[in-house]
């Protein structure tokens, strides 16, 4: 069974440029998460989807970040314009049923460097 797939693995852009990250969750997983992870720190939730609905986006900086999960399968996270402080690893994860304490399955992440 394929795991959570993210792309690109690495992205280097100049500040003020746009960038997009893509995530394909494990088949059948209705819950999808986007996390931001700074070096040496734990993940910070940006947004959580239940199917195609964003049920928790309180930590998403909506002035420059946007996300979508059309058809409740794969998802895209966009930053426009990027700032120096956005340099981090963006992790995508999926799970079956969070209500039962379901395990999160993570992708390998997308490392963003903003110059």
């Amino acid at each position, binding site marked *: 069974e394929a795991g959570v797939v993210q792309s690109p693995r690495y992205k280097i852009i100049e500040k003020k440029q746009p960038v997009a990250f893509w995530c394909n969750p494990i088949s059948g997983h209705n819950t999808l998460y986007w996390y931001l992870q700074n070096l*040496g*720190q*734990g*993940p*910070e*939730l940006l947004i*959580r989807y239940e199917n195609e609905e964003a049920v*928790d986006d309180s930590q998403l900086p909506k002035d420059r970040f946007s996300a979508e999960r059309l058809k409740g399968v794969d998802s895209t996270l966009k930053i426009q314009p990027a700032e120096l402080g956005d340099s981090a*690893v963006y*992790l995508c*994860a999926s799970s079956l049923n*969070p*209500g039962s*304490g379901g*395990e*999160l399955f*993570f*992708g*390998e*992440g997308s*490392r963003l460097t903003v110059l």
Partner: protein
Amino acid sequence: AQTVTQSQPEMSVQEAETVTLSCTYDTSESDYYLFWYKQPPSRQMILVIRQEAYKQQNATENRFSVNFQKAAKSFSLKISDSQLGDAAMYFCAYRSSNSNYQLIWGAGTKLIIKP
């Protein structure tokens, strides 16, 4: 609000020895889940072990076991017979059983295995 604290930024252990990673949490809830996740240098986070708060018995997965002290709100991870492949960041996480299902992460402990 719930919090998760990992007081050891870094731990080291000799190969084949046993090491214990600490985690404490704060919550007013009685029903919840606790997790230990491992993140090797390749960055893909994987679940090590999970504990349901209503279960008194400590969870065990091969060389990994937990010491769950609900009254003390402590959830430590013991790794027996440490192997080089155990070197990674270890994150403790808490998940509520209410409708929020938000996962609260600790800051992580870097585990170094000395050959």
